[in-house]
């Protein structure tokens, strides 16, 4: 957005517009009432335009003060009080901080109080701006802009007098440590270059003498540097006239070189060195200026509007940046997933091609595997009674006195195996499934009262059965010969003829 700059001199006021690296002269107004009227006419229909006033007047006061080192509202209050004590009209007054100093009891802040001796000359012009609805960015004086110019022309200079030939006259500003200390304007008439250069030298020497008198510069120190901006085409004359001595070291800077240093590429015809200050006021305005907050209210609101939108835009940009990184990750993940999917498809196709050469089945490979594996498991958990019966039959041939009443063959589960184990089998069956064979029979051809003989024969029979993978799980003898049981007998009595009965249980694990 272009900024408009009202260059305020004692005779005339010039309205410039600054856009980019260009400075253009829009209008020129006389300092009298007709000029104000013309200015009001010019402002018509320019509501919301950005304006700044750059004053280049001789009557500018500089006064150094010290105030207690304070901050915030306390500092503002004491600064306003000092300004009110110094100046009758504080509408256009400023206090520039020029450092701190340690006093005997407290730390003080050094202030350079500055204002114009005649602030009334500004009033109608500022009122015109206010009435037009323009936004006043600030009221500056050329000396307030001098530190910025000095920093660009001689960045390393600790102390320097910046001398420029403006429309208003010869402007001299003393800058120390990047801060304005003093300035003066000496009016000039049309002069030949040599005369202007000689005038610049003599005035600079006078200023240096004055500063030395004020002890603003050390008396026996190094020569004070003077940066003199020579008008276009007058550098040679200036360099010839500006002879340095023990007090002042002159450095001539061509106006073209100075314009390049501040970044100004196009200046209006007839403009003096004030173009440098005007461009700095438009692009890099200093924080210190003369206008009150009331005069700048529209500008402040405008700045606030832009700041709020900029904050929103910045937040959006940050979010967009973060989201972009997420999208990038998403893109990479999707690309990776596509690669994996492609390779998975490729592997599946190769698998399908290879399995196509497999034997033709009536079912899927998965079902084939499941069906056969489960069937095998069922078959392994099954058994047929034939082998058990053949085993019993073969053993029975060796014991002709044994007569079997019943054979009970069954498949036992894990629970029954544990029962067999609890029954005290010598080598319990550990398999999940087992074949259980219960054999009930009688002992013939032995006297019933021959306990020892009958018990021996049954135990021998049982031991013979416990072979070929079968284990003896339980033996129920005709007589209970254990200590826990009851042993009965009828010695000498009549034999009932009934053969003693026994039960033998065998077990054989599956798998």
């Amino acid at each position, binding site marked *: 957005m272009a900024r408009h700059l009202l260059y305020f001199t004692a005779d005339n006021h010039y309205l410039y517009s600054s856009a980019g690296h260009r400075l253009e002269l829009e209008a020129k107004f006389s300092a009298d009432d007709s000029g104000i009227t013309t200015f009001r006419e010019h402002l018509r229909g320019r509501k919301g335009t950005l304006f700044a006033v750059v004053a280049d007047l001789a009557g500018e006061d500089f006064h150094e003060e010290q105030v207690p080192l304070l901050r915030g509202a306390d500092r503002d209050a004491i600064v306003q009080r000092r300004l009110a004590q110094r100046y009758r009209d504080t509408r256009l007054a400023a206090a520039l901080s020029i450092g701190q100093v340690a006093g005997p009891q407290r730390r003080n802040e050094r202030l350079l109080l500055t204002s114009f001796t005649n602030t009334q000359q500004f009033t109608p012009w500022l009122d015109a701006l206010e009435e037009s609805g323009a936004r006043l960015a600030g009221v500056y004086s050329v000396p307030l802009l001098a530190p910025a110019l000095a920093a660009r022309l001689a960045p390393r200079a600790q102390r320097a007098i910046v001398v420029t030939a403006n429309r208003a006259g010869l402007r001299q500003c003393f800058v120390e440590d990047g801060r304005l200390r003093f300035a003066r304007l000496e009016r000039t008439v049309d002069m030949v270059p040599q005369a202007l250069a000689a005038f610049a030298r003599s005035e600079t020497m006078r200023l240096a003498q004055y500063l030395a008198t004020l002890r603003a510069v050390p008396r026996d120190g190094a020569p004070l540097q003077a940066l003199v901006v020579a008008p276009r085409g007058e550098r040679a004359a200036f360099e010839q006239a500006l002879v340095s001595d023990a007090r002042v070291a002159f450095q001539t800077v061509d106006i073209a070189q100075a314009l390049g240093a501040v970044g100004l590429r196009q200046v209006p015809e007839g403009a003096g060195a004030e173009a440098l200050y005007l461009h700095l006021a438009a692009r890099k305005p200093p924080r210190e200026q003369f206008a009150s907050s009331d005069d700048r209210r529209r500008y402040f*609101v405008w700045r606030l509007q832009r700041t709020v939108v900029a904050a929103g835009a910045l937040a959006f940009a940050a*979010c967009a940046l973060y989201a972009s990184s997420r999208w990038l990750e998403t893109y990479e993940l999707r690309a*990776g997933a596509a690669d994996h999917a492609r390779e998975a498809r490729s592997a599946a196709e190769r698998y399908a091609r290879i399995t196509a050469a497999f034997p033709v089945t009536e079912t899927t490979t998965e079902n*084939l595997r*499941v069906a056969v594996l489960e*069937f095998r498991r069922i078959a392994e958990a*099954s058994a047929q*009674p034939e082998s058990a019966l053949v085993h019993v039959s073969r053993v029975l041939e060796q014991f002709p006195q044994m007569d079997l009443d019943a054979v009970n063959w069954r498949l036992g589960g894990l629970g029954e195996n544990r029962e067999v184990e609890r029954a005290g089998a010598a080598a319990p069956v550990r398999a999940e499934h087992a074949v259980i064979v219960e054999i009930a029979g009688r002992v013939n051809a032995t006297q019933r009262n021959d306990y020892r003989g009958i018990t021996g024969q049954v135990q021998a029979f049982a031991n013979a059965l416990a072979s070929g993978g079968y284990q003896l799980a339980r033996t129920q003898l005709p007589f209970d010969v254990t200590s826990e049981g009851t042993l009965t007998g009828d010695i000498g009595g009549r034999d009932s003829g009934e053969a003693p009965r026994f039960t033998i249980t065998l077990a054989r694990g599956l798998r």
Partner: protein
Amino acid sequence: MNFTREELVRLAFPTLAAIVLLAAGVWLVTIAGESRVKAQAQFAAAHAERRQNADRLARIAEEEREVREKLDVYKQLKRLNILGEERRLEWADAISRIRNERELLDLTYRVNRQRLLKSLPGKPGSVDFYASTMIVQLDLLHEEDLLRFLADLRASGNAYYSVRNCSMRRTGQAATGTTITPRLRADCEIDLITVMDRGAKT
């Protein structure tokens, strides 16, 4: 600093614009986050599928050997009609035929209702194992009659015969000489197992 109503109105639009921009930014971040989560899930799924397919491809030689080996068993199950629906009429026919061929004395049987033994997930359908318990009572002249009956039953096919229990005891009847008197009586409980392959090609 206090703002006038006019200034507040002037600040309203920029504030609204800033809020809209901020909301749009948050929306972008949210959408991007959700999209990334979905992409991560896609990536994980694709990666798992790729690994699974690669593993399956690596095992293909073993699988081929397994298929050839299991296919023989499967074909045998099919040939014996163990695979497929129950064939109760064939069972009845087989028992009658065995009784006649072996000249068994008395034979009674009862086949209970079919029950699901196990259902295993497969692709594309499950593989279900069913069992129908048959209770058989036989009068025997000799114990070998039982062994022959069981062998003939197995040879008849139409199911896998898993004998659960079988008891044999003396009848205690004395031989009369005029009629054939059974000396033994057997009671058996046999599971007739069939397999239904729901994924089999029709």
